[in-house]
């Protein structure tokens, strides 16, 4: 009875895993098919012969290297800048006693329910006035600080014992020294988590870069892919190669650091 139950359970789990992975496996497989093979009946799951032509033409003919560069640059820049700004604020909310600390933090938290789309029109106008439309700054500036990031770091930094900070202060350390040599090293796990979440969020973001990057050469991978897929509807194999280039970096990143990423989501959900 027990073993039957177990077998059944594994069958269900494997079937779900199959459904989860099938579209991604098919994407990789189709990206290696010769042109036209993905549009045959019955559908084929494996390439008749493996070809890297589509990847080649993405990088030679379709400027994909540029989009890849834009995506990497923006994701890394937003990640690093927001990490510094959010960790400073998170630390301040966790450890500094000052008037209004609680109410400012509460205001920030309650603003999380305002959807970003509400800000997009005025933000576009503002950045347009500042001359940042169609520039890297246009994506970086709105991503410099995030309430979610401040929240995650605050929760974590609260667990650092005050005595540690006091001891450093008695030894003559200033606020910045304490932040740099005590708080940041101790917050390492949450900083890694937040870095991954921010990197992936910027990498996968679509609507805002679509709005703010008006020139082809400034597109990020998702914007470029959406554009290409509307132009090259018939080139299945080519589009799958483009999808692989877009998805593979985040998927590989996730696979290598998934422990941190998943623990971040769990931490973010425990805000009763």
């Amino acid at each position, binding site marked *: 009875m027990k073993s039957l139950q177990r077998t059944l*359970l594994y069958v269900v789990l494997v079937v779900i*895993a199959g459904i989860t992975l099938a579209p991604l496996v098919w994407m990789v497989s189709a990206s290696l098919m010769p042109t036209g093979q993905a549009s045959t009946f019955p559908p084929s799951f494996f390439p008749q012969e493996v070809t890297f032509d589509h990847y080649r033409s993405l990088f030679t003919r379709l400027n994909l290297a540029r989009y890849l560069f834009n995506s990497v640059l923006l994701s890394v820049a937003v990640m690093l800048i927001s990490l510094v700004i959010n960790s400073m604020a998170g630390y301040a*909310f966790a450890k500094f006693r000052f008037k209004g600390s609680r109410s400012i933090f509460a205001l920030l938290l309650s603003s999380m329910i305002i959807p970003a789309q509400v800000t997009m029109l005025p933000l576009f106008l503002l950045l347009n006035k500042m001359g940042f439309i169609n520039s890297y700054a246009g994506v970086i500036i709105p991503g410099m600080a995030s309430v979610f990031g401040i929240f995650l770091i605050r929760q974590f930094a609260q667990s650092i014992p005050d005595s540690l900070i006091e001891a450093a202060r008695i030894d003559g350390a200033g606020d910045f020294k304490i932040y740099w040599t005590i708080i940041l090293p101790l917050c390492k796990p949450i900083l890694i988590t937040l870095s991954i979440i921010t990197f992936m969020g910027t990498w996968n973001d679509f609507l805002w870069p679509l709005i703010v990057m008006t020139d082809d050469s400034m597109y990020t991978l998702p914007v470029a*892919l959406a554009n290409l897929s509307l132009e090259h509807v018939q080139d299945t194999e080519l589009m799958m190669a483009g999808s692989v280039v877009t998805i593979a970096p985040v998927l590989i990143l996730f696979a290598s650091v998934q422990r941190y990423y998943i623990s971040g989501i*769990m931490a973010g959900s425990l805000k009763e």
Partner: protein
Amino acid sequence: MRASTRAAVIFLAPALTAIGAFFFVPVMAAIVISFTDFDIYSLGNWKYARFVGLKNYLDLIENPLFWKALRNTFYFLFVGGPLSIAVSLAAALLLQSKLVRLKGIFRTVYFAPVVTTLVAVAVIWRFVYHPRFGVLNYGLSFVGVTPIDWLGDPEWAMPAIILMAVWKNFGYNMIIFIAGLQNIPQELYEAASIDGAGKWQQFTSITLPMLAPTTLFISIITMIGYLQLFAEPYVMTQGGPLDATLSIVLLMYEQGFRWWNMGYSAAVAFVLFALILVASIFQSTLNRRFKTS
């Protein structure tokens, strides 16, 4: 100023300036813009925008396209949301079973679609749904289903988008459910089984009530996410066929950034905000009532 206050100001200044200038100010400005006829001429010189009062909102109410977008978004929310949560819970329960080994591997695999890029996923699924060469119709043909034009048929386009969204999202809520399940004290189940409660009874009288706070949290974040439907219809159907997948955010994008009717578009954005606000308040009231009873 006290030393600690001065330090706090220095440490908070960058974050609060950034969030203030590039989030709170735009929110306020959006309210103002939604009461003006801001358009492409005003883009060059803001002075050209005039106050029009509630005109944008009144126009919205009279626009059948707006109601269509609202209806579609609700369809996505009320069918896709619960379906996604149910699948997440089922997956979490399966993975919590004591009989299963290799939990970590399954968990990672189920979570993988969450981190993938939505645009790329939509591009893939567009081919999965292809009426002639798509894998889905091919699979269904073995059980005698005649080919369905998933994305070309107004009846099927939204279900197709929902199916893809569930595939993409269920792993996220699954993780939160697993965290919730791990917080349920094991003794409860032991006591219940001594009292002779069956598996199903344990599920309905222990697991579900103990998961209630988790479920409410998940409902809120799922609802906020699902109301923002955009990339799927943008890439897969461009809102069609016959506007069957036009969403609120897609309408906002097209009005604001394709036709530059920014006043009108800001009004659409505020409808989205109002929906999220009302639903969040409703759900947290429910939560409070649940806690006191």
